[in-house]
Structures are given as structure tokens and as C-alpha cells.
């Protein structure tokens, strides 16, 4: 449980990064003319769509990790069982990816940034704007779903983490915790509609970077150090199987 709480916290910290891009969307989603409750509903729908995409990606990534780790189709027993080599490698790769993403938040590794956000999807994002102004309950939900697929280093980092859990359920839970972590900030952005001062936003980005860096180091150590693996699993609750 503590593991997922930490992910939630990381998501919360990371969401200050979201304010840069997705916060703009949340602001643009705006208020509903039918009153405060309708506005809250609108934003909840948007965030639900986003969360669904994250969870789906998490589940998929986890399942992929599972496939990689168990080529013979055996299910890996995570509790107590020693990590096999494939999962270690996966953890190392995911950890390195996360560290790379984190460094990019600090303004390092600019090439990595292009790699992370340069899939030419800005045209896609532009075409999504038509959804922001569309009426109806379905539009914000649909927008949220697409928003979840927009390239974002934060999401990539957590998807990498989800893959390293090597299981559909833990992967799903990883992304769910992260997604729920981003809820407060995004709801605040949309509902309150206040934009934080740029200085604060910069601090938020650093905070997000630190969190991911920490997570990346933990994931990496899970792959490298035999003891750390036991520490990770020694947590109360650990990875549920």
C-alpha cells in the first residue's frame, strides 16, 4: 500500500508539471453555464477520461512486462519469490528511463526531451481543440481520453514503472495511483481556474523531477541490488500479486 501511496504522492507532485500543458486544457475546458455542479461534473468527466487512459496504458504495460518476464506463460509470483533476470533487466531499463525523464525536467538532456515529446502530435492536439468547446457531457470525457495519449514525459516515466512491475494488475494500480495523484491539481486548475505564478510552476516542475528521480533510483536499485529488491518487497503490502 505504501508503494501506491508513494506513487500517488509522486503523481501529485508531478501534476505541477501538468499545469504547463494539460492545465491549459483544463482551463480551456472552462466553466459550464449550468452552474457550479455542472462545472465540477465536466471536469470530473475530463479527468475520468484521462485516468481511464492511464489505467489502460498501465494495465497494458504491466501485461507486456509480464509477457517479457514469463516467456513460458508461467505467472510470476511476486510475493516472496526472487526476482528473475528478465524482471531485473526491466527494472533497470525502466529506472534509467525515469532518471532520464527526471533529468530532463531539470533542463538537462534536451535531446531526450525531443524524443519524449516530439512525436509530431501537436497537430493532433490542435485538432482536439474542437472538443473543448463542444457541448454535451461526452465531449469532456472524449477529450480526457485523447489527452491521456498525448506525449508527456511524466506519463512515460510511470508507464515504464508499470512495465517493470511485470503484472497487469500492479501495472494498472501503478498508473491508477499516479493518475489519482494528478487529480487534485488538475481539478484545482479547472475548477478554480487560477494559474499559478510562473515561479511556483518552475518549483513544481523541479519537485516533479525530484520525485521521478527518486522513483527511478528506487526502480533501478530494485534491478541492481539484490537487497533493495527485498526492501521493495518487504514493504507492508508490497506488490499485490
Amino acid at each position, binding site marked *: 500500500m505504501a508503494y501506491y501511496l508513494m506513487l500517488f504522492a509522486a503523481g501529485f507532485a508531478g501534476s505541477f508539471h501538468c499545469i504547463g500543458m494539460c492545465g491549459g486544457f483544463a482551463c480551456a475546458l472552462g466553466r459550464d453555464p449550468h452552474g457550479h455542479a455542472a462545472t465540477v461534473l465536466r471536469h470530473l468527466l475530463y479527468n475520468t477520461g484521462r485516468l481511464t487512459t492511464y489505467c*489502460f496504458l498501465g494495465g497494458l504495460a504491466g501485461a507486456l512486462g509480464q509477457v517479457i518476464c514469463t516467456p513460458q506463460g508461467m505467472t510470476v509470483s511476486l510475493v516472496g519469490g526472487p526476482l528473475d533476470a528478465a524482471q531485473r533487466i526491466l527494472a533497470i531499463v525502466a529506472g534509467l528511463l525515469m532518471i532520464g525523464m527526471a533529468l530532463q525536467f531539470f533542463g538537462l538532456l534536451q535531446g531526450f526531451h525531443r524524443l519524449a515529446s516530439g512525436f509530431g502530435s501537436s497537430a493532433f492536439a490542435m485538432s482536439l481543440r474542437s472538443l473543448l468547446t463542444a457541448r454535451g457531457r461526452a465531449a469532456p470525457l472524449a*477529450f*480526457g481520453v485523447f489527452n491521456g495519449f498525448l506525449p508527456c514525459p511524466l506519463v512515460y516515466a510511470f508507464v515504464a514503472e508499470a512495465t517493470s512491475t511485470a503484472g497487469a494488475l500492479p501495472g494498472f494500480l501503478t498508473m491508477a495511483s499516479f493518475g489519482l495523484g494528478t487529480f487534485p491539481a488538475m481539478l484545482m486548475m479547472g475548477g478554480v481556474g487560477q494559474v499559478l505564478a510562473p515561479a511556483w510552476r518552475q518549483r513544481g516542475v523541479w519537485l516533479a523531477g525530484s520525485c521521478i528521480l527518486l522513483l527511478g533510483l528506487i526502480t533501478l536499485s530494485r534491478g541492481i541490488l539484490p537487497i533493495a529488491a527485498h526492501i521493495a518487497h518487504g514493504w507492508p503490502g508490497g506488490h499485490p500479486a
Partner: protein
Amino acid sequence: MTDDRLCRHCLLTIGRRAMRRTVNGENCAFCCYGCCIAFQVRSGKSEEWEAAWLLIRLGVGGFLSMNIMLFSLLLYTGAFTGVDARLLPWVHLLLWIFATPALVILGGPFLRETWLDGVQGRLRSSALIVVGVGAAYIYSAFAVIERGTHVYFDTATMVLMLFTVGRYLEAAGRARAARDLEPLLAAESACATVVNGGAETRRAVRDVKARMLVRVRPGERIPVDGVVTEGESHTDEAVITGESRQVAKSVGSPVIAGSINLDGPLLIQSSGAGTTTRWAQICRSVRDALVRRSPTQRIADRVVGASVPVVLALGGLTMLYWAQWLPLERALLFGLAVLVVACPCAVGLAAPLATSLGIGRLARCGCLVRDPGVLEALARTRLLAFDKTGTLTSGRAHVVGIETDGAGTDEVLARAAGLERYSEHGFGHAITTAAAVRGLDPVVTGDVRILPGRGIRGNADGKAVVAGNGALMSELGWSVAPALSEHGRSLEADGYSVIYIGWGEQVRAALALDDSVLPEARSTVEALRSRGLHVLLLSGDLAHATQRVAVAAGIQDAQSGLSPEAKRAALRQLRQRYNVVAMVGDGLNDGPVLADADIGIAVGSATDLARETAALVLPRDGLWMLPWVVDVARAVRMTILTNLMWAFGYNCIAVTLAMLGWLQPVLAAAVMAGSSIIVVLNSLRLERLPNPVPSAAPDQSAAVESAPTMHTSSLPIIAGQAIP
């Protein structure tokens, strides 16, 4: 674009199953659902409800199917076993509730397509999806009611989702194929700003008449042919001429429709109706070419048409077979996998995409393909027959030698030029140019009369001066030195055109004129030969003249003295040996021969495109592009073959795997969608073909080298690019 035969998004032929939508207030036709989505996503204005509605449907469909997939993943990993097993029916019910709207939203377009095809008595690939997904859904619904252990809502929705996303991605890739063709096809839908008095009105180009004033702002395409009456700018005429360079335009300069006005506003007086420009002609020609189907495409279409019932039968048989040993649900899944994986979309896409990319790639360099089959034929041909005049030669006469009876060559040329500057004849031009090249002032000549078919006469310094053929000289009864007369006859026998110059009642000189070989002819022939092509010269000219050109161009095999009928007979004979023959001509004199060849290629055609008989038209002075065109044609054919091999091979292997039960339906759908995308990506490699590189710059020295040498002593050679 008002044409309904081409898809609005990817410019491929629509066929009979058009999808029609209203985007931005216009009626648009699309060849498939993917193009419909991609076009609306790309071009739909944000205030358009329909574009937004489409995205909303996709988004909500995605939301529902992702939820279904998540729950199913949890089911598969065994989250609801043991204590939670009593929750299972409720989870199934929840999945059913999610799946029903998802099926309606995502499956609607496929169902509609199937229905429309069915009404017309046809079965297409969408029928496979509808049958497969419908079966999975109905079975699962019964399983929920009967409290069965397995439901397959995830399979049903994910197959739909993957096919929708796959079609979108495929269409997005296909739009890149249309990029090169767009400027050419824009002619019909182009608008012009017509200035009438002080008022400016926007009109369709087809409503622009001759002598109207049209304003063109920087960055706009010039919509009509005409003359600049106001303003200065540069234009890029690449669309029409194939040469991407800036041409300066000022008052009085002619401009051609289709070129881009680069940097200054221009006011243009139209010189003809908007529909008669070469741009508009090219537009119609390209559109016709795109609508036509190549032979390969016809075969592929027939295979696709025949395969759908076969696949349905295979799916049914697979299910029946496995149902004997396995529970019905497993057998059903195997059957579904067969239906999904055998969808023959990629086969239908293989040829038209590569062909239209090839046509676009050639069009960008000014080469016009009028029949899509010609690219494949050109790639297969082993023989290229050339016409001589106007194709390998410039088609313009040059003075290549002067024989005199003692008079100075400069005097001869100056007197001849004094006469010939009044002549419109090509020979006259050649003589004045020869005089100008040597820096001679033409002798002032008065009382000039043209004697049609014979020559020209006038008066200079009180003496009669005559230039003309031998017949004119004997008619006049002027005396000729025997040596000069002998030389003249032998020159004529060698295929030169001979003009006699005389004054003071005596023939003083004989000028030999010849058509000069194009400077790029030799390198082009060499490049073609290095591509394994046999090059042949077929000429209607005399043997000596033909041989001179053949030697200059480096062609070993030449046939001379052929009438157009004899040329066609020669081609027929060659076809027996080479199977496919290509004929290269100038499109002026050899129209019937070009039409008769398997591939007619016109170079530098000045004729009306509508009357053009060649299937492939190179731009003026575009002979040097021919090897590159062959390269493009071969690349297109290679791409079509690899596409077809991939699509067929993939289908065969995948169907076998699916029938053996080794392929999950969701995986099958993913790989199926991937196969179409691979075909698109493979075809898009054609975009990366290098641009043509001029192998020989047309310059003076090359022209002199290639000009034939003569056995005259008085003046070796005056040659060069006669007329700029």
C-alpha cells in the same frame, strides 16, 4: 475539388463504396472510413459540430473499450477467483453494459458499410468484421444471461477499436501520398481575384475569361495564363516546367497558370479562358490518370472481391471443425480470428497507393503520367526506341559548313544574313544566327521578296542577291562553278539541307545546314544503357543524317527512311522480341507511333495535352530526365510487388495460424491493422527517391563536339546553340 471519383483525403479512387460527409459546408466523398476520420480531424473547423462529434464518438468508444479491456485483464489475471467469484456475474453484466454502447459507436460505420454493400449485392471486408464482432458479442450476451464462465466483450470492442485506429493511421499516411499531387489538382478548385474597375471579386477560375485583370498576392498561385500589367515579383513555375527556380517578372512578362507568386503583388491580364491553361489541362489529365486502374490493380481488386466469401467460409469451417473437440466458445474465437485476420485491405491498397505516389513524384518534376499502367510497363520494358528529329536533336537547323567558289565566307554570310533576316523560315534564322555568332553585320538589302518553297531574293548595292535551293538557281539560270555544284550535290546526298547563295548572276556559295544533336543525348543514352535498356533509333530521315545522329548520341542500332507506317511495323516486330516496347518522340510528328507503342513517351511536347497521344509526357528539354523516370517507374513496380507479396503472404500465413487456433482475435486485429500500415509505410519510401540530376548541362562546347564534322576546307564548322 468537385470531382466525386477521388477521395477527398488521399486522392485515391473511391470506387462504389463512397462515404459522404459534409465538412466545412462542403460535400466531401471519401474512399474509406479512415480517410473520413483523418480528413475531418485535419481539416474540420473547430466550430464544425460534425468533426467534433466524430472525435467525441471515438473518445467515448475508446473510454468504454479501455474500461472493458481493463476489467477483462483483471479477469484473465484471476482477480475474481476464490472469495470474489460470486462477483463474477456482476462483472460480466457490467462489461455487457459497457460493451453495448461501444459496439454501437465503434461498429456503426462498419455495419453501415456492410449494409450498403449488401443492398448492392456485394460482400466486402467490413462484412468480415461485422460478422466476427457480432458473433462474439451475441455469444457473450447469451453467456451473461446463462451465467456462463467466459465473455468476450473485450475481444469484440478491441477488434473494432483496433480497426478504427488502424484505418485512421493508414489514412493519415495515405494523405502524404496526395501531397505532391495537390498543387496539380488545385487547378479546378482554384479561385481568382478579378479586378473590374475599382472592385475586386473572387471568382472560380473557370469563370475567368480572356483579357480580364486578375490580382495575385504574394504566396498565391497564379490562376491564369497572362501578362503582368502592374507590379514586380518572382515566380516559381515548378509545377508546370518541373524546374524549381525563381523567375523574375515585371510589367510585360508573361506568366503561366499554376506558378507561385513569391514576393510581390501582381496584376495580370488574362490571355485566355481559365479552363484552357496548361495547368488546367494537366489537372484534368492527372485526375483521369488517378481514376484509371492499372492491370495489376484490376487483378488485385478481383482477388479482394473473391476473397471475402472464401474467408467467411473458412471462418465458418474453422469454427465447425474446432467445435467437435473444444467448447463452442473457443471454436467461436478461432473462427473470429480467421475472419479478422484475413481482411484483405492491404491487398487492395498495394497498387494504387504506390502508383499515385509515383505519379506525384514525377509530377513534382514536371513529368506527366496519363495512364497509371504506364509506370509498371516502363519498369518492365527492355527496349527504348527514339525518334530523331526534335527528340534527340534540337529540331532547329544550324549552319554546319560553307562551300564557296572563292568568295570570302564572311561576305557570303553577311549577304545571306541581309536577305534571310526578312525570312521566317527556320533556315533563315539559322543563317542570321551564324552571321551574328561570327560578329558580322548583315548587308543592307532592299526589295526583298520571298519565293515560297524555293528561297528568297532581294537587291544589295544595285545587284540582285538570291538565297535558295538548287531548283531556284537553275530556274534563274545563274552559272555555278562545277566544283561547287558537285559539293552541293554530295552534301545533299549526305542528308544535309543545302542553301545556295548567289549575287551578280552567279552562284557563289553553298551553305550546309543540319539539325544539331542535343548535348544531353549521349549521356542520356549511356545512362539508359547502364540500366540494361536496349536503345534504338527509328527515323524517317535519310540514312546518312540518321547515322550522324546515332553516332553522336552513341546509339549503335539505327533504322532510317521509315515512314510513320513503317515505324509502327518496326515496333510491332520489336514487340515480338522484347515483349514491351517504349517509343520516345516529340509528340508532334510521331503521334500515331507513340500511341501504337506500349509506352509512348513525349519529350518537349508543345502540343495540346488533350490531343496528346503519349502516356508519359516529359517537360520541354526534359530528355535528360528519362533515366530518372525509368528509375521511378522501377521503384514503383518494385514497391507494388513487395506490397502485394507482403499482403498476400501475410494473409496466407496469418489465416493458417488462425485456423490452427494459434492466434488470439485481438492480436489478429492488431497485426491486421499493422499490415495495412506497413503497406502504407513501404509505399511512402517512394517519397524518398532522389531528385533527377542533370547529367550534362546544355552548353556550347558539348554542342560543338556533337556536331558532325565536314570535309570542307573553307570553313570548318559554325555551330552552337543556334536559337536561344
